């Protein structure tokens, strides 16, 4: 966040900004957030884009995050080919299974859940947090 000019209090917490947008804040707390976003361009940007995003989301216009996975397409092609070229039925079927597994494990949310579940099962919550910690550091290490 940018440095705050004199007179602006510390940034409101996420829950406070969300409360302002959902109109659940009243009186002094509402005024405090409003005075803050008038002066803090970061928080104003965040509040405005959150307002626009939720509007789109509720109208069902949000970005469709489901992308057709290349492994899924290849698995389907391989499955179809296994019937076309019956000499290589077993090979194509094996490829279908492998590509299918790759498709499932490639989904990021699946990956995340599997990691959390395994860590939790093996080492309890501490281990799960450790895994999430390393997941957290993953993208940043590429910077």
């Amino acid at each position, binding site marked *: 966040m940018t440095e705050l000019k004199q007179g602006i209090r510390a940034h409101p917490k996420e829950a406070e900004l969300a409360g302002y947008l959902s*109109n*659940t804040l009243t009186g002094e707390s509402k005024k405090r957030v409003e005075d803050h976003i008038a002066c803090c361009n970061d928080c104003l940007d*965040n509040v405005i884009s959150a307002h626009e995003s*939720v509007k789109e*989301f*509720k109208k069902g216009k949000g970005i469709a995050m489901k992308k057709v996975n290349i492994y899924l397409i290849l698995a389907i092609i391989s499955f179809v080919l296994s019937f076309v070229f019956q000499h290589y039925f077993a090979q194509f079927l094996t490829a279908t299974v492998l590509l299918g597994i790759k498709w499932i494990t490639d989904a990021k*949310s699946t990956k995340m859940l599997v990691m959390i579940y395994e860590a939790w099962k093996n080492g309890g919550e501490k281990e799960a947090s450790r895994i999430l910690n390393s997941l*957290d550091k993953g993208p940043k290490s590429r910077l």
Partner: protein
Amino acid sequence: MEEKNDPYLIESCLKKDLTAWSILIKKYSSLIYTSIDNRLKKYGISASSHDIEDIRQDIFSDIWKNGKLITITNRADISYWIAILSGNAAVEHFRSKEARQSQVNVPLSHRIGQKELDEILPSGIPRPNDELARAEMEERVDAAIEALPEREKLMIKLYLIHDKKYHEIAEFLGVPKGTVSSYIKRAKEKLKEALKDD
């Protein structure tokens, strides 16, 4: 109906119920995508799907790791909270990338369109045509906006920088359209006065 399920979903997520986590991830992933994209668009950044995916993963791990769900005050509708969290995470992600830093930290006046700028600059003032004069003018515009009283400042920023119409500002702030109109009119007059050459 889904909204009504949110408090139960949060409760289950707090108990580290993996099925609930899976539902939460599925339900709010598209909102997170949209929020990241909308926030970055404010700075003219078009993030790649790889970047957005990284940020999305950061957000869920942050919620899990830091037990952030407990901080939610309005469990009946967590969409605003998710959107705010995503916007912050998007900016933090790009602030840590040196090459993009300048884009995220642009001066206020850079984001005002020419038409809107003409509305606040006094008539008869020559428009700057070299880099130095433009930078000087931008600095004066920024300072003049920041010097306005809070309510006028908020409304003029929504109008000039966020391209909001009077009725949208009125709806956002929960005030009558006429109030917005008079506040913005007053703010424009003050800005014209402040930007006059002495």
